[in-house]
């Protein structure tokens, strides 16, 4: 399965990914129209500053995802394509925030009014099957690729691997 890999060395913190993500999840899918929408769209990727690094983070679609284990309704599930999402599944999200509580990346948001957990759902894939955040990244800090296609050395440049070690050691 393809993943959004993060090369923090290349991130300038321009937040183009955040903007593209929000627009992709707006009703109109258009920046100018999205500005006028009553309920502003919510982004699902977040650029953080940690020490001297800028790190864009979105859902890793973990293999044994803590959010799926914690979901009390069965809404959070993995699609046959490997996408972890709480929409379009066997049950409805009721906004209990169990997933928000257990996601070690902090990338599941809580929409309190709609009682809906909001996260990367890969509903934004374009005609070449690339997510909007990756497409919008002007520096190549985000890459959408099969992890196994990367050699061990190259993989280590991507912080996603650090994240994975965090994942397995602590979750």
């Amino acid at each position, binding site marked *: 399965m393809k993943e959004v890999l993060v090369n923090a060395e290349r991130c300038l913190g321009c937040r183009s990914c955040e903007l593209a993500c929000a627009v992709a999840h707006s009703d109109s899918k258009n920046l100018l129209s999205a500005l006028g929408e009553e309920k502003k769209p919510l982004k699902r990727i*977040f650029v*953080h*500053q*940690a*020490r001297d*690094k800028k*790190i864009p*983070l979105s859902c890793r679609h973990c293999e*044994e995802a*803590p959010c799926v*284990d*914690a979901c*009390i*309704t*069965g809404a959070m599930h993995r699609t046959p394509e490997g996408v972890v999402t709480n929409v379009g599944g*066997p*049950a409805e999200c*009721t*906004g*209990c*925030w*169990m997933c*928000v*509580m*257990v*996601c*070690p*990346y*902090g*990338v*599941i*948001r*809580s929409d*309190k009014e709609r*009682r809906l957990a909001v996260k990367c759902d890969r509903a934004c894939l374009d005609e070449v099957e690339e997510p909007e955040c990756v497409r919008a990244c002007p520096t190549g800090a985000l890459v959408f690729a099969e992890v196994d296609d990367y050699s061990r050395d190259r993989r280590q440049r991507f*912080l996603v691997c*650090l*994240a994975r070690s*965090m994942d397995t*050691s*602590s*979750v």
Partner: protein
Amino acid sequence: MHLVIIGNGAAGITAARTARELLPSARVTVISDEPGPAYARCLIPEVLAGDRDPRSISFVPPGFYREHRISLLSGRLVVSLDAVGRRLTLEDGETISYDRLLVATGASPVLPDWPGADLPGVFTLRTVAQAATAGEAARRCASAVVAGGGLVSLKAAWALKRCGVAEVTVVVKSPHLLVRQLDEQGAALVQRELSRAGIKFLFGLDLAAITGGAGGRRQVELEDGRTLPAGLVLVGKGVRPNVQLVRRAGGRVGQGITVNERLETTLPGVYAAGDCVEVQDLLTGAKTNSALWTLAVEQGRIAGCNMAGRPRRYSPPLTRLYAAQFGSVPFVSVGDVRGDGETAAFQKDRVYRKLCFREDRLVGFIMVGWVERAGIYTALVRRGRPLGRLKQKLLDGTVSAADLMVMK
């Protein structure tokens, strides 16, 4: 190879699914004393409220058992376990042989021995059937008393209000609500929201008796002698793990069924998972009963792997992981929030946050009113490493997962 699973809840169904995926050739049988397919137990307050019908809280898609080739024996009670002969006996006398067994029998609500606790109109809230029956009764009631100030009790009180019960009173022995999850300040925000919905509260005392059955006017007598009218009484005084089957078969039992790191009981070929087992808390090392949906799912998967011959270890979990929302007030509580070490609390209007530390480690936290990025705090509690420079970011509320990634 015949794998038999007693219990059709979070642990049972996850184990069945896992074992089926790993061992396509095995026979997998799930036996449950409840009727129907697996359902989301945490959603039964919504059935009580009448917001959902029992069928709509199914936890598995239609056709799940057929597609996974799992035989479901529902509405069947297992009365004895012969661990030497590897054989179960059901209530109707039928016997079922197994090669490996998973006991995922869950827990049962505690019903205190108040006089009158067995009267009609007194309910506990554990099964969807109970929720539906209590909901029907509630629609004919003008008053209800809820005993207990924990999560189930409050969800029930909220649901009873939604049923249209005019007077709902929650009687709480502790000095404030949700003592397991929140401190006084955090609980006050939740209480405010529940009070706005019209729910009343009495603190510091318990029920003493319930009087007047069918026909008569049902009342609740409190410890201080006062009485409250109670068309319906709902008891939420916690649960007790269902250990009888294993105990009678000679298996060891502590705070729940004793299991090793492979989730095997002391009986050969018998595993256990979910609310019926004893676990060791990651933070305190204390033995406690496992009583969380998310732990049941993890344990079910690990038990399923082990039963299928793929050894996997279960490490001590965080046993306190709570999230919920009442009205417009969400909250999260994780880890050790007793606050007997260093604490830092922040409140601004209706948002409250408390961090509990021990020796430069985060051991627990409470968030009320705003729960964004709670998972990062949970990850820090789970890691248990010294915080160093990260502590200031925690205090400022600016910590992100990126900080954890660069943390050495």
